[in-house]
């Protein structure tokens, strides 16, 4: 372990901020278990997500994607219909793929720290309008060890809550500690 690494190495912080970060991280580490132990093959989890305009902006800003197709919220006008080739504003194609994480990690249990997403095979089937409510369904299909590392595989379906339209289908792997 490199003991010379500092909490504020990559961004400026006061001593107070540093102590807040250390307390938060220590809390995460003591409450969680490994993902490998949390998941059993055949586990199915499902949640509904309301994809609000503000959530889309949060995502688009975090990945620095400023395509106007995704703007169902802008400063000054606030919520707006937006414009895209499909009519109103649409959701960035892989946004829901990210939120799968909040389903396959059972949100009612402490999160499994140290897990890493390693692979996804995603079918983007239909554009999702901003404002849609989607259901994300995950099913654990495999747990395997490769080169001494432990992986958990899930299959995912994302559908429209109101119409049942299938928006996205995915297979994804997580490397567990």
């Amino acid at each position, binding site marked *: 372990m490199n003991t010379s690494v500092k909490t504020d190495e990559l961004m400026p912080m006061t001593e107070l901020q540093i102590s807040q970060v250390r307390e938060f991280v220590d809390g995460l580490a003591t409450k969680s278990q490994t993902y490998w132990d949390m998941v059993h093959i055949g586990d199915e989890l499902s949640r509904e997500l309301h994809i609000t305009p503000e959530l889309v902006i949060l995502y688009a800003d975090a*990945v620095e994607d400023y395509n106007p*197709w995704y703007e169902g919220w802008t400063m000054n006008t606030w919520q707006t219909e937006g414009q895209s080739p499909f009519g109103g504003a649409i959701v960035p194609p892989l946004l829901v793929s990210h939120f799968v994480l909040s389903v396959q990690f059972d949100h009612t249990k402490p999160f499994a720290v140290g897990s890493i997403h390693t692979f996804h095979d995603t079918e983007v089937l239909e*554009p999702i309008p901003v404002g849609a409510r989607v259901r994300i369904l995950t099913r654990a299909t495999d747990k395997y060890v490769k080169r001494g590392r432990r992986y958990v595989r899930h299959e995912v379906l994302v559908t429209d809550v109101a119409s049942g339209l299938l928006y996205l289908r995915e297979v994804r792997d997580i490397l567990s500690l």
Partner: protein
Amino acid sequence: MTQTLSGRPVHGLITRETPVGHVLVGVKKRATIQLMGSRLWGRFNPNHWDPVYAARTGLKAPIQTGEMSSAYISEMCVNHFGAHYLRQSRVVCKYVASILANEVIETGGQVREKTPKGHGFRFTVDVWAQNEAGEKKTTGWVEVDVGVDADPAAQP
């Protein structure tokens, strides 16, 4: 220069006529620690934003969540395929190496294959994200239908 339907200039939308070997112009981003630590990603895995925790687990620095490089590749695909990319496409990404905080990442792509489908083609494009030293961090491919409908006007 071709424009997307929203009027955004790009370096040439891919059409039925685009040949195998065509190179996509990527997007370039820095792995900024503030964005890596956004609440959007959960903040429950300190490997993504805390240098001390990352060092304890053997990492040289906090690493980006893979979702970020997939999003960069996806942005490149929207720039080149426009609305076609939003229907019946496939995106496969493998995170082959970690993207460390402060690295500059650039995506790339090249048309590997075009398979006749309907009135157009299903394009297969090799995609990747790499750092400034040319080290591949994410690799994969996308498949996108272009011009497969009989009436091009019916397509968005």
